[in-house]
């Protein structure tokens, strides 16, 4: 394709946006609303995912070793745990270390536990981490059956609950987004249909004088692309602007190490890129649907 041809296609596609003024406006609005909702949803979802991942990664299995176990028994237990394929990491913590940790975690009041240094009631512990957090429960159950594993503890319950909520939210959101994407696409394909109708005589003549199908299709393809991209402008601006401010506002207030917002850069820019890509896709897709059906090319 020559530069002149490309210029011609660009000119034609832009002219046609103006010619179908109201349909152009309706299509762009539909894309705008869709992408705005998709964008907000993505921001919330990805941040929630981030919280979940942080909590997930903190999950560990604490295997209390039976007090009667000899050094040899401990080694055997360790080997057994290590042999479970899902286990990623295993750390030993003696009962003295455990007590120190306990004292530390109580802060000033912890000093009262110092009495126990003489006769430590705690057990030695293996701290086990699995490669995938979701395997925690399975691995824990297995370890329970081992000899000298006196007690097996892990932060069961909360993570499952979080994931269940997240899954429901994700499904509802996905359904909503797919519906909206189709609506926007449908409107774009209608706009292109009107363009094609308005230009059917021109298309007929193009065919008669030997224009290739590709040549005929290009302006419509571009028009769809413009509709999608123009529809992405407002959502991107709004999301960049509000995320920047929300992040600035909330950052100093979030002290919990698990609940942290994803940093503005690169996160917000990634969202912007996703929205541009989505806008372009529904635009092009909508126009292709019409072109195929009404141009018979």
């Amino acid at each position: 394709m020559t530069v002149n041809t490309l210029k011609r296609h660009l000119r034609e596609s832009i002219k046609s946006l103006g010619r179908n003024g109201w349909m152009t406006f309706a299509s762009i609005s539909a894309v705008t609303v869709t992408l705005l909702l998709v964008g907000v949803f993505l921001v919330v979802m990805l941040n929630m995912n981030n919280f979940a991942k942080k909590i997930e990664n903190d999950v560990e299995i604490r295997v209390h070793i039976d007090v009667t176990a000899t050094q040899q028994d401990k080694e055997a237990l360790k080997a057994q745990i290590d042999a479970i394929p899902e286990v990623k990491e295993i750390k030993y913590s003696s009962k003295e270390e455990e007590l120190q940790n306990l004292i530390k975690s109580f802060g000033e009041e912890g000093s009262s536990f110092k009495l126990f240094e003489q006769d430590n009631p705690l057990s030695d512990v293996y701290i086990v981490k699995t490669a995938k957090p979701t395997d925690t429960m399975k691995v824990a159950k297995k370890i329970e059956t081992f000899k000298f594993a006196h007690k097996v503890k892990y932060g069961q319950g909360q993570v499952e609950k979080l994931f269940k909520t997240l899954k429901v939210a994700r499904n509802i959101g996905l359904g909503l987004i797919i519906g909206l994407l189709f609506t926007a696409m449908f409107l774009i394909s209608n706009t292109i249909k009107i363009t094609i109708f308005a230009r059917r005589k021109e298309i007929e003549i193009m065919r008669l004088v030997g224009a290739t199908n590709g040549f005929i299709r290009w302006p419509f393809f571009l028009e769809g692309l413009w509709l999608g991209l123009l529809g992405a402008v407002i959502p991107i601006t709004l999301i960049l602007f509000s995320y920047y401010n929300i992040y600035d506002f909330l950052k100093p207030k979030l002290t919990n190490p698990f609940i942290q917002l994803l940093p503005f850069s690169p996160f917000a820019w990634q969202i912007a890129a996703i929205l541009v890509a989505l806008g372009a896709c529904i635009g092009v897709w909508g126009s292709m649907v019409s072109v195929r059906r009404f141009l018979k090319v």
Partner: protein
Amino acid sequence: MIEMQDVYKTYPNGVMALSGINVRIKQGEFVYVVGPSGAGKSTFIKMMYREEKPTSGSIMINGVNLAKLKDSKVPLLRRHIGVVFQDFKLLPKLTVYENVAFALEVIEESPKNIKKRVMEVLDLVGLKHKARFYPDELSGGEQQRVSIARSIVNSPKIVIADEPTGNLDPDTSWGIMDLFEEINNRGTTIVMATHNREIVNTIKKRVIAIENGKIVRDEARGEYGYDS
């Protein structure tokens, strides 16, 4: 050269438009296609620029079988065939110049060549001085000249005309016919469907008469042969 062999055409609604057409038209010939309405003239014409595909049989144009031509190759075929219609098919928002140039633009001709060729053909059809006019500022005859200019602007070997004088008054029609003769004299094959008895009987050319989807008459310097 155009050669049709055993061409049959049945439309999806069951109408049989052509039933066994055999014809050979040599390069540089001038051929009238006559016959009553609904006899298959239009289908016959449409076959030649591959607007319709034959149900069976073969249509060879300059060595290419249109019956087997892939859809994607049709544009290339059309670049070697000019088509003129009764209703001109001009774009109302483009000037005379732009309407003719359009045919070259869509086949991605260079701007320099476009200008040269368009002015040449506008000169040939006698409308050089009206290049900046819009179609609705022209008479019917002039509009048909523009459409003829467009059909020959990429120097096709064949020009197919479907009742080119159908919308024109007799005086104007003669002018249009002079133009077709001029184009024919330059070696271009002309195939023209027409209902104009006077023209056919005055400017004597080969006449192919089609009735009920069959060629019933094919004479070298024929007559129109119908009453209307």
